[in-house]
């Protein structure tokens, strides 16, 4: 189990990964070239995936109220 402080850190890290991943996605959508597709999948996709995994980890590792 993560402490509340650690959980908040995890949540913050996940949020940063997701926000940056989504910003990269938005940029790639406005930039219609083959390299944009690669950046979208390789960097944006990886950041979003990492953010989702870290977020879920922070959720399941946070002790429930009363634990």
């Amino acid at each position, binding site marked *: 189990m993560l402490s509340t402080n650690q959980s908040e850190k995890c949540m913050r890290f996940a949020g*940063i990964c997701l926000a940056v991943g*989504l910003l990269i996605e*938005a940029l790639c*959508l406005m930039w219609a070239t*083959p390299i944009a*597709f690669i950046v979208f999948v390789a960097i944006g*996709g990886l950041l979003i995936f990492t953010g*989702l995994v870290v977020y879920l980890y922070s959720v399941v590792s946070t002790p429930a109220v009363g634990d």
Partner: protein
Amino acid sequence: MPQATILIVCLVLFSAAVIGILAARTGFTAGRGGKILAFVAMFCLPIFCGLLGFSSEMQRSKTTAFCLSCHTMEDYGKSLLVDDPTHLPASHYQNHRVPVDEACYSCHTQYAMFGGLKVKMYGLKHVFIYYLGTPPAPQDIKLYEPYNNRECLHCHLGARSFEEGAVHNADPATLPAIKANQLSCLSSGCHDTAHDLAHLKGAKLWEKGN
């Protein structure tokens, strides 16, 4: 930029902003409502945006402009404008026998299970070679495998001009051989002028096509 793409970009930016706020103020997520908001913003929205964006990118990767955005493909783009009805890609492009916006993909995809995925993988390989390798000269580019009649028959099968064509029916064995891919549409001396880059320099181009 198409309106759909603008909407997707707006949704993605909105999601990024909400996630940014939640990441900066994690205290919001302490209560029950905050937890639900965080779940929607940090799990549901990114997946939704990711899938929407991926779908949009995949759709865009089928466009003629996307294929021709590589310098190596410039001559192939020009060959679509050759003013010669026997030039197969040009006659298909100019007469809208293929969607003009997806001209390359329409003929160069594979109409089979996972065919679309396979050609996308070829496309990724092309991007890799273009940026990190040594791209071949346009005239040296070859197909990965001989052109399959299946791709032609995807549209032409059942069409009157194909089924009742005089040459196709001159010999009763011709039509079944074409349908079975035993007699190639392109390399049997019939419709064999495709992207003739060697003669592109002197060729007359259809001006209105530009």
